[in-house]
C-alpha cells in the first residue's frame, strides 16, 4: 500500500468527504430506526458469526502461501545424506517421474543448516530471521501433494481438490464461522505486491459456495477494494441526501412487503457498506504504527518493504476480527521469476525469494506473539509442493517440482511450539513417518478453529461437500 496516497485519500474521505458523511447518515438512521426486524425473523447476515462445533483454540487464521514450490531441502528439512550423496545417482526410489522429465544427480543444499533455539530444530541460513523463531513453530516434514503441476497443486493446498471450481479454505471458514467484524470482509486476500499468482482470483474463489464467501483481494495501491468510494465528482452532501432518500424508499418497500427478510438485509447491507467506508481505510492506515514495528516487518528496507506491509496489514486485519487472511508470496511464472519456482538455479532463485519473505514473516510471528494475538490466531505457512533432491537436468543447478515430500509449518494456540512432526526419507524424496496429506492439514486447521471437518458440509449437486472430501485426519501429535 502506498502509505501517503492512502492516507491522503482516507483524509479526503473522512475529513470533509464521504466516509464521514456516510457514517453520519448511518448513525442518524441507526439511532432513529435501528435495524428493522421482519415478521419476527431475524435479519439475515451473510457473515454473522456462527458457533463452532466445539471450543476452538484459535479464532482466526493468517496463511502465508509461498507460490512456485519452496524447496524443503534448502529451508527446513535438513538432509546430511544428501551432502554425502551429492553428485550421485538417485537410487532405490522406484520409477522416477519428474515434471520436466529430466532428472539429474542428487544435489546437496548449497545453504548451511544449523540447529536453532532451545528446540534444536534445523533451519538453513537461507532464512536467518525465521530461524530465530524456530521455537515458536510447529513443522510438518511429511507433507505430500497430489500433483507436480503448480496450479493443480496450489488448488489442492487451497481447496483439497486439484481441479478448478472448488471453494478454498478461507471460503469454507467464511461460510462455516462467519466473521467477528461485520465492517470488514470475512476473508481477505493480499496478493504479492510484485503481482498476483497465476490464475489470479481463481485461487481464492468460493466455487459452489455462495459468491459472498470468496476472498476479497486488497489492491496494493489506491483504494483497497474497487468501488469503496464513488468517484471524486460525487459531492458528499448530495450523496448523503441520496442515501437518505434511498433508505426511506427501501423502508417503504420493506414495510409494504412484509415477510421478506432479504429486504431488511438490504437496508442493513447499506449500513455496513457505509461502515466499511471508514473501517477499510482505517485498517490500511499505518500512520499510528511505530518505527519499531515498521522495522520489525522490514518496511524500512526496499527489498522487504512490499511484503512487509502486507504482513503488517494481515496483523491489523486479524486484530479487527477478520476470520481469514491469505497472503501470497510469489506471482506469475513468467520472466523474470517472481516466485519460488527454482528450475534453473536454486541459489539464485531461493536467495532472492527468501530475501523478501523471511524478515516480514518472522516479524509478523514476533509481533503476533508480543501482542498476545498468537493466543487465538493461527499462522500457517504453506507452499504447493517441494523440490527434487536431484537437479533438473545433468550438471544443472536447479531443482524440479516435487510432490512426494515437502515441509509446511504453523504457529499459534493449540499447537506444540518448537516441534517437528513427520519426516521425509534420507534424501527427502518420499515422506515416510508422519506422512500428512493436505486433507490432514485442513482437518487440523478446522479442528483448531473448533470445527469438525466431517461436519462442515455444503450440499452441491448430489454431494454433501467437504473441504476434506472423504479424507482427512486431525494431526494429533502436533496438538498441545
Amino acid at each position: 500500500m502506498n502509505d501517503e496516497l492512502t492516507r491522503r485519500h482516507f483524509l479526503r474521505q473522512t475529513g470533509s468527504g464521504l466516509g464521514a458523511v456516510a457514517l453520519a447518515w448511518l448513525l442518524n438512521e441507526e439511532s432513529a430506526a435501528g435495524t428493522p426486524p421482519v415478521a419476527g425473523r431475524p435479519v439475515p447476515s451473510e457473515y454473522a458469526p456462527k458457533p463452532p462445533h466445539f471450543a476452538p483454540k484459535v479464532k482466526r487464521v493468517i496463511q502465508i502461501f509461498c507460490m512456485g514450490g519452496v524447496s524443503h531441502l534448502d529451508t527446513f528439512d535438513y538432509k546430511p545424506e544428501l551432502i554425502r550423496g551429492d553428485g550421485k545417482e538417485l537410487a532405490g526410489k522406484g520409477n522416477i517421474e519428474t515434471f520436466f522429465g529430466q532428472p539429474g544427480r542428487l544435489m546437496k543444499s548449497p545453504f548451511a543448516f544449523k540447529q536453532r533455539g532451545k528446540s534444536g530444530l534445523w533451519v538453513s541460513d537461507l532464512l536467518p530471521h525465521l530461524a530465530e523463531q524456530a521455537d515458536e513453530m510447529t513443522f510438518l516434514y511429511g507433507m505430500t501433494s497430489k500433483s507436480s503441476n503448480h496450479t493443480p497443486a496450489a488448488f489442492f493446498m487451497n481447496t483439497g481438490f486439484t481441479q478448478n471450481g472448488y471453494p478454498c479454505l478461507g471460503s469454507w471458514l467464511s461460510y462455516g464461522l462467519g466473521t467477528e467484524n461485520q465492517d470488514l470482509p470475512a476473508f481477505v486476500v493480499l496478493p504479492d505486491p510484485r503481482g498476483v499468482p497465476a490464475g489470479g482470483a481463481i485461487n481464492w474463489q468460493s466455487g459452489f459456495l455462495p459468491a459472498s464467501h470468496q476472498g476479497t483481494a486488497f489492491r496494493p495501491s489506491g483504494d483497497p477494494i474497487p468501488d469503496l468510494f464513488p468517484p471524486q465528482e460525487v459531492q458528499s452532501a448530495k450523496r448523503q441526501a441520496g442515501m437518505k432518500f434511498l433508505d426511506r424508499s427501501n423502508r417503504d418497500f420493506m414495510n409494504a412487503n412484509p415477510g421478506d427478510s432479504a429486504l431488511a438485509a438490504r437496508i442493513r447491507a447499506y449500513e455496513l457498506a457505509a461502515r466499511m467506508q471508514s473501517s477499510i481505510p482505517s485498517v490500511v492506515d499505518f500512520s499510528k504504527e511505530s518505527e519499531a514495528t515498521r522495522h520489525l516487518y522490514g518496511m524500512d528496507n526496499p527489498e522487504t518493504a512490499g511484503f512487509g506491509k502486507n504482513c503488517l496489514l494481515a496483523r491489523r486485519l486479524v486484530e479487527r476480527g477478520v476470520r481469514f487472511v491469505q497472503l501470497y508470496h510469489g506471482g506469475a511464472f513468467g520472466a523474470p521469476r517472481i516466485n519460488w519456482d527454482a528450475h534453473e538455479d536454486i541459489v539464485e532463485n531461493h536467495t532472492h525469494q527468501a530475501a523478501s519473505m523471511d524478515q516480514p514473516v518472522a516479524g509478523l510471528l514476533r509481533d503476533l506473539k508480543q501482542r498476545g494475538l498468537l493466543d487465538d490466531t493461527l499462522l500457517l505457512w504453506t507452499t504447493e509442493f517441494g523440490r527434487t533432491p536431484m537437479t533438473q537436468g545433468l550438471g544443472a543447478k536447479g531443482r524440479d517440482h516435487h510432490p512426494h515430500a515437502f515441509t509446511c509449518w504453523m504457529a499459534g494456540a493449540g499447537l506444540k511450539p518448537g516441534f517437528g512432526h513427520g519426516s521425509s526419507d534420507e534424501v527427502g524424496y518420499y515422506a515416510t513417518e508422519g506422512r500428512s496429506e493436505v486433507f490432514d492439514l485442513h482437518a487440523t486447521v478446522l479442528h483448531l478453529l473448533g470445527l469438525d471437518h466431517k461436519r462442515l458440509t455444503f450440499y452441491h449437486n448430489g454431494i454433501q461437500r467437504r473441504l476434506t472430501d472423504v479424507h482427512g485426519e486431525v494431526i494429533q501429535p502436533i496438538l498441545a
Partner: protein
Amino acid sequence: MNRGRVLLGAAAMMAANWAGAQTVGPALPSMAKVAAVISRCVSCHGDKTPSGGLRLTGRAAALKGGVSGAAFVAGMPDQSLLIRRVTAGQMPPGGPLKSSEIETLRQWIASGAEWSASFAPKPNRAGLDWWSLQKPVRVPPPKPKHGLLVRNPIDAFVLAELEQHHLSLSPPADRATLLRRVSYDLTGMPPTPNELDVFLRDKSPSAYEKTVDRLLASPRYGEHWGRHWLDVVRFAESEGFERDSIRDHAWRYRDYVICSLNADKPYAQFVREQIAGDAFVPASQDGIAATGFLVAGPWDQVGNLVASGSILRKQVREEELEEMTGTVGQTFLGMTVNCARCHDHKFDPIPQRDYYRLKAALEGVKAGDRPLLNATDNLAHEKLISQLRSDINGREVEIEKIQQTGAERAGAEPQSGAPSTVPLPIAKWTFETDANDSIGGLHGKLFGAATIAHGRLQLDGRGAYLQTDPLPRALHEKTLEAWVCLPDRAQRGGAVISIETPQGAMFDAIVFGERETGKWIAGSEFFHRSRDLEEPVEKSPPQSLVHIAAVYARDNTIRFYRNGVPYGKAYLPTGDTPELATFPAGGAHLLFGLRHTGSGNGLLTGEIEEARLYDRALGAEEVSASYRAGFSHISPEKLLAALTAEERGRLEMLRKERDALHDRLAHEEPAPLSYAVNSFQPGPSFLLVRGDVQQQGETVTAGGLTCIRSEPSDFALPANAPEAQRRLRLADWIASPENPLTARVMVNRIWHYHFGRGLVATPNDFGFNGERPTHPALLDWLATEFQRQSGRWKPLHRLILLSNTYCQSSRFDAQAAAIDADDRLLWRFAPRRLEAEAVRDAMLSVSGQLNPLMGGPSFRPFTVVHNNSFFYTPTDSPDPEFNRRTVYRINVNSAKSPLLEALDCPDPSTRTPRRTVTTTPLQALELMNSSFVLRQARCFAERVRAEAGASPAAQCVRAYRLAFGRLPTAAETERASAFVRQSGLPDLCWALLNSSEFLYVR
C-alpha cells in the same frame, strides 16, 4: 414433511385407541419417540445380519428373540431383556441411552409394546425402485374443492395440495406487477412504459395471453433463458487453471443455445446436438457448435503439456473425462454419475461400471477450435487457401531474385560461394532500419528495451525481445539461421531464434547455454526434441559474429551448424513428442531473443545481425554457401538505386500483386471456427480400480445407466466401436422418450426458473441425496405433457405462465407462512431478486443505453496482461459494444466483474443449477459507487428529461414508470420531486437503480 407428521399422528391415535381398550394402562409414549430409539436398534438387529440372532423387524420376531431370549415381555418392562441391557449400558454399542429414552422404552413396553412401521430404519440409499427412475405416469388432474380457482391442470395439482393443508392460492397479482414479473421472467428485461400502457389499456380477456405470446416470440427470450442454460452447463470462455487463456471461438456455442431456444427447438434435438452434433451426417454448423457443451468446462493447459505417457498426464485426462461425464449426467439426467468413478455410487443405484460405460462413450472427445464447416466444404476451402498461398510464394521468390540482383550490383561483392547456390529464405530480417521481414510479411514487433541500432537487433537480456506476426502458412520441415554477436558467454538459456505456438506450448529454437554453459542446443518444449551436442564451449572472440543454423528435416533428423560446419552429430529426437513439429498457419510466430513465451530464463543478451527462415531443410552445402555469402549489408535505398527502371517497375508490380493476394487470403483464410469437440478414435476403455489410472480393471464398452430399465442401457457396441457411434448412441439413449429422467429433469428446470424453486429443489440431483418432489404427480404430468408437445419449451412456458398459480399475488400471509414458511406449496408467488445479468441489463434498458445487437464474439470489458499466465483487469467503458446484454460479456474464469459477482453471478467453471442469492455490503458498495451504475443513472436522467420535460413531478412519474413499471403514488411524487429539486434528477435516478423495488420482482 407434514404428511409424515400426519401419518405418525394417525398411528399414535390408533395406538391410543387400542390402549384405551385396556383396563388400566400407563400413559402411552409418543410413537415417534419410540421409533427414534428402536430404529437405532434395528440398524444392527435387522433382517440381513441380525446381531445375536435377534431380529427387530416386527413384534413377533422381537418376541421370538435371539440367542439370549425374547427382547421383551409385553407390559412388563422390568422382566424385559431390552430394558435390562439398556439400563446396564450394554446396549446400544455406540453409548448408553439417555434416561429419558430408557423411560420411553419402559412406558412403551408397559403399555403393551405395540409395533409400528416407523420403527424400520430409514433407507440410506436409493434402489432400482427409486421414484425418478420409473417412467412418469400421467394421472388426471385432481378436482380441488375450489374449482373456480383452476385455470389449467397446473392449478388443479397445486390447489389440491394446498387444500390438503388448509391453504389456498393468493388473489391474482395486480396487472402492472404481473406484467413486470412476466417480462423479467421471460426476457430478463423490464417492460417499457409503452408496453405497460398497451397492457393496462387492453381490457380484453386475452390481454395477458397476448403479452405472454409477444414475450415468447421476442429474441430477448432466448438471450435470457439461454443464460439459464449456460449456468447449468458451466459455460466458460477461458481455460481456467494456471494460464486461463481465452477461448476465442467459444461464443458460437452461446449463440447456438440462444438461437435454439428462440427457434423452440425440440428438446430431443437440442440434447442430441450437444452430445454428438458433429457426428451427424452431414454435420451442420449448428451441430458442430452445439458440441461446445461437452468441452465448456475448465481445461488444464499446463497439465496437457507434460509427457504423454506419464502418470500425471493420464490423471489430467481422467479428470477432464470425469468433468465431462459428470456434466452429461447431471445436465440431462439429474444423476450424479461422477460419484461412481472410484466406487459404486454411495446413494444411487449406479455401479462403478456404469460410470465407465458413460465415460467410454465420451472417451474420444477432445477440446479445441475447429472449422465450423463439414468435411466437403472444408476441403474446398483448404484448396482455395493453398492456391492463394502458392501464388503469393511465386511472387515472393521472384521479388527476392530481383533484390539479390540489386544487392550484388550495389557493391556487395559476391563472396567466394557462387550466389546461385545460396538458398532462398521465405523470410529475412536484416535489421538495417526496422524489424520488418524484407521478403514475406512476417514483420516483427519489439518488446521490452529491444531496439534496432547499428544494423542489428539489440537485446539486453532483461525483457527485450522481438515477436513476428503469425505464420501465414503452416511450417513443417524448416531451417532457422542467424548471425549473432554474444559478448556474454556465461549467459544461460537465451534463444537467438525461436518458432513457437501461442504461449510457447510448442517451440523449436536455437538456444545458447541452457543445459551447459557456452554451448548451443536445439531447444524445444520440455526438451522433447533436444539433445546435448558434443562440442567445445563457444570460444570465438566475444565481439565476433557467429553464424548458427538449425535444420529440421522431413525425416525428423535435426542438424545443427556453426559457422557453416556441422555442430555436433545429426540426431533423431527420442523425447516424448519426437516427431517433426508442425507450426500451424496463423497459430505460430517467431521470437528473437526469447526462448519461448513465459520462459523463466529464456532471454538473450546480445545483438542479432541478420536472421532467416526457410520452409525446407537446407543441405550442408547450402548452409555453408549461405554462411560464406554472408548477411546482407545493403540498405533498401541503395538496393533500389542499383536496379534498372524496368526491374524497379517489375518489383513494384510484384509487390502490389503479392499484397493484393495477401489481402484476399486474409479475407478468405479464417474459416469460421468454433471451440467444440475435436474427436479422435480412442482405444478400448477400462474400469479403473478406485479411479486410479494405474489400476486398469475390466474392459468396458459404451453404454447407459443400468438403473434405467425402460430402455436398453447396453449400446451393443464393441470395445473398438467408432468414436462417433459411441456418442450418437449415448445421445439417442438420453433423448429417447423411454428415458424416465430426461423430460422430468428438463421440465423441472423450467419450473425452477419460473417459480424460483423447482418441484424438485435440487435440479441436478434426482437421486437419493436430492430433494423429493413437492408435487410428484404434477411433475409427471408436466413431463408427459412436455413430451406430447415434442419437447418444445414454449408451450410449457405458456402453460405455466397462464396458470393462476403463476399469476397469483406475492402478498405475505402470516397464517399461511406458519404452515408453509418456505412457500413450497405455492400459496403465493415468491418474490425474488433479479439475477446479476438482469440487473445490469435492466439498468441499460432503463437508461436507454442498451445496445440490442445479438450474437457474435463476446465483448471483453478488461485489459489483459500476459506474463506466462493471462491476467485480466476489469475496465468500464461507455462504448456501445460494452452496452450489449450481459449474456454477451465474455465468461472468463479469472475476469469476473465486481458488480456481477457481488450479485451472485456464479463461477463459470461450476455447474450451477440454481443460483444463491446473497445480500452483502460489497454488493451495496458496487451498486452505490461503480462507475457503470453512476453512468447509467446519468443517462437515465438525461432520458427522463428528454421524455418528460422540465417539471420535476413529470420527471418523477416517468422515472418511476421506467424503473418500477408503475406510477408513483401522490406521496412518492411529492417526496421525489422535492428530492429532485434539492439534489437533481441524476441523484433520484441513482437512488431508484439502488432501490429494493428495482432489484426485486414480485
